């Protein structure tokens, strides 16, 4: 049986050809460079996104800087082999020198090495916690917005989490999970897991609220109805139709999330809930240096600048990505 949808190579008798073969609009709409009719051209969607992203000057510069920061914290310790936790009380509070290009801190530890190692933790915590928070927030936001039945309970959940005092919650989490985690994953990874989960689990509410609002509006859009009419099941509906359309607020939440995660981490270690004391992170370096700000200003400036720079670059990358992911902007 022949497929009635596939026309024979010659149109069937009496089938009217269109107005002038092709409307002028069609022709106008086709870029000249485009190899017409090339169905084989499967240029990936991501290449479009990348192409558009490259156009965003701020985002590109930010990406470069961000990569440099990553290089600094990841490859840096390879090149600069001083131990970030090596205490040398004879070399306390030294200024920049060949042995210590950025000087040493109050215990004679090398500032450069500490910044590099600290950055690893801070960026990893910031990113992971942000991802957890954003994923949790988006999931709950989408579910609350999409299913009318879930809206009220999930909204109450959001309110509950907003109202919960964080400190006791974190203390409880630490008490319950610190030892089992340390046992199963080792002290470092265990604490890392605990911290990112703790930060993630207590900072998803903003994102959820924003996403829920957007989904509520989106749900009334006709293409959702259209998707239902072509038999799209709910799961796929949320994945393919809802999620991509609420990406923009999620991106904003993500950018802000990294900044607060890095800061929160330092606050946590100051409450005894974070990494062990000999574990440098940018937030902690900043915090530790504040009392000595007047004598050794570089000690606050360096970690502070690195945190700001990271957040700033992530923000610009987020801006660029948001523009690039939006096909309406990409078309322009």
């Amino acid at each position, binding site marked *: 049986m022949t497929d*009635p*949808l596939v*026309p024979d190579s010659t149109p069937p008798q009496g089938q009217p050809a*269109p107005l002038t073969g*092709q409307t002028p609009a069609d022709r*106008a709409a086709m870029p000249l460079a485009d190899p017409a009719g090339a169905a084989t051209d499967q240029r990936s969607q991501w290449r479009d996104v990348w192409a558009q992203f490259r156009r965003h000057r701020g985002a590109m510069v930010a990406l470069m800087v961000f990569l440099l920061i990553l290089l600094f914290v990841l490859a840096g310790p390879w090149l600069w082999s001083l131990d970030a936790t090596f205490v040398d009380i004879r070399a306390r509070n030294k200024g920049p020198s060949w042995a210590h290009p950025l000087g040493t801190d109050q215990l004679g530890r090398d500032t450069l090495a500490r910044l590099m190692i600290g950055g690893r933790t801070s960026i990893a915590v910031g990113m992971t916690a942000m991802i957890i928070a954003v994923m949790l927030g988006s999931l709950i936001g989408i579910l609350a917005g999409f299913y009318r039945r879930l809206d009220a309970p999930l909204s109450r959940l959001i309110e509950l989490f907003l109202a919960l005092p964080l400190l006791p919650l974190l203390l409880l989490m630490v008490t319950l999970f610190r030892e089992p985690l340390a046992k199963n994953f080792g002290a470092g990874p265990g604490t890392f897991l605990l911290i990112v989960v703790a930060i993630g689990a207590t900072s998803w509410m903003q994102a959820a609220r924003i996403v829920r609002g957007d989904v509520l509006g989106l749900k009334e859009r006709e293409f959702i109805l259209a998707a239902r009419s072509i*038999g799209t*099941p709910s799961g796929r509906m949320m994945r393919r139709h809802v999620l991509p359309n609420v990406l923009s607020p999620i991106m904003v939440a993500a950018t802000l999330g990294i900044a607060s995660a890095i800061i929160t981490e330092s606050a946590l270690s100051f409450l005894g809930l974070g990494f062990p004391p000999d574990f440098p992170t940018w937030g902690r370096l900043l915090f530790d240096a504040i009392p000595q700000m007047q004598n050794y200003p570089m000690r606050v400036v360096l970690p502070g600048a690195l945190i700001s720079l990271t957040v700033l670059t992530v923000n610009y990358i987020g801006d660029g990505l948001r523009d690039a992911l939006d096909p309406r902007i990409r078309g322009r």
Partner: protein
Amino acid sequence: MLDDAAAPVGAAPLVSIDGLRVSFQTREGRVAGVNEISFDIRPGECVCVVGESGSGKSVTSLSLMRLVEYGGGQIERGAMLFDRGDGRPVDLARQSDATMRDVRGNRIGMIFQEPMTSLNPVFTIGDQLAESLIVHRGMTRAQARARALALLREVRIPEPERRLDQYPHELSGGMRQRVVIAMAMACEPRLLICDEPTTALDVTIQAEILALINRLKREKRMAVLFITHDMAVVAQMADRVVVMLRGDKVEEGPVEQIFESPREDYTKALLAAVPRLGEMEGTDAPVPLRLMRGASAAEPRPIVVEDPQPLLEVRDLCTRFAVKGGLLRRTVAQVHAVEDVSFTLNGGETLSLVGESGCGKSTCGRSILRLVEPTSGSVRLGGTDVLALSSGQLRRARQDMQMIFQDPFASLDPQMRLFDQIEEPMLNYGIGSRTERADRIAALFDRVELPRSFMRRYPHEMSGGQRQRIAIARALALRPRLIIADEAVSALDVSVQAQVLNLLMELQQDMGISMLFISHDMAVVERVSHHVAVMYLGRIVEIGTRRQVFENPQHSYTRQLMAAVPVADPRQKKISEDLNFKPIPSPIHPLGYQPPRSTYREVAPGHRVMVEPVTHG
């Protein structure tokens, strides 16, 4: 304005556009929105600009207001001489912003293409009307309010006093459009620009508005620049016509000349694409339009179904929406959107649903697919009772019935490539392997005559007509037996509309698809349907074969609809200025309300007209 009133035709032009060129900065570099265009408008004259979508009509008008700059455009060349009333024309292209502010709203009024969105949603009608009066005429608030009231009276809005304090969303589409017109008219401009003011409206409201513009033109000696793609409206409104194609003027002339002896092929093609009411008189089966094309002209075949079998049987369908209120969110009233509707659609045939905006056409179509849950009644599709299906079965049943939505742009996911959008229904039902699906999508693209290279585009990268074709391709992907086409062509310009109509009919012919065709355009309905049902206030007031209903309309509402249809013939101007349709009664009834059953009178075999209840006339 004495000189205007006395100005004979052929007097000094009010506006004279000369060699205008407008370009936009885009990703692909500078593109021209308008290439090179020149024409004049004289006082008291209506110049219609026609042309397909994207030909530069809106850009031209926006350039006149110098608003095109705000959209990223740039006037590269040309002059736009405008007589501000002192006899010394100034070149608008070169005026300062301050001068332009004086021109805008004061000397030139503009009605925008999208009436629904061009009012600010958070200010009252009165505020928005008063604004330009306060700015240009230096009126006090009270004076401006009084004048706004007078303006609303002038555009014949019912209960104008009440409207002043209402917000735009509280008005119906037609009223909003009239507010926009009143706003454009507020300072009695010398030139009124109307950019497709009626495209989104149904015929009755359209007729009202056209009449209004006509009256103002005559009474105030106002010049009108009327932009539209609807040739019937052109015929009714224009003194002169400018035809545009891809940024250039291709032809210009008095309306009779353009309609009767067009010179350019493009104009001819445009005219040929216009469905005219009454063209099908005397025939039974729908026939695809005959389009102007190159050498290979073939005679369109009528779509005749031998021995039609009922496919879709709708009986006593009622759909009501709850109006909730009170402390416990109880339903306090109901919108009787579809009330007691029964009809039968035969396999391979088309039944059209026509009626006023808000009469329940879309709801009826959606109820059949159970995209909204009907309150009662029965829907049988080829023997299965659709309303009794479980949600899993319903999903499977939808494979057989597909819908083309009223708004093609809204019903496509803006974030998804066209390929994925068409693939989705097949994915949902697990049809075919990856390559098979790709093949079928390619075939569908061919079928709806879209280049395959469009597959990786996004909806916004398409023109309206192309989007509509994507929606059609998506509906066809599952090879359904029934398609519900909800205003599938209303938003398209004539040439594209003709193509889409032909495509649908062609597919019907080839694949034996049945169609429920929902539309407010009577000429189109006449062209495509085997049967016609006229809806009014949720009920079918008249149903029969197309020939029965069109050649022998019985119900008063059907007649009114027919009367409101503009005729694409400049010698047959029938826009009456005294059209004043009654507003539709409210379909909202309290909870316990028992609607009376519809009773019909059989005029001829299959041609039934409602006698009870009397809701219209």
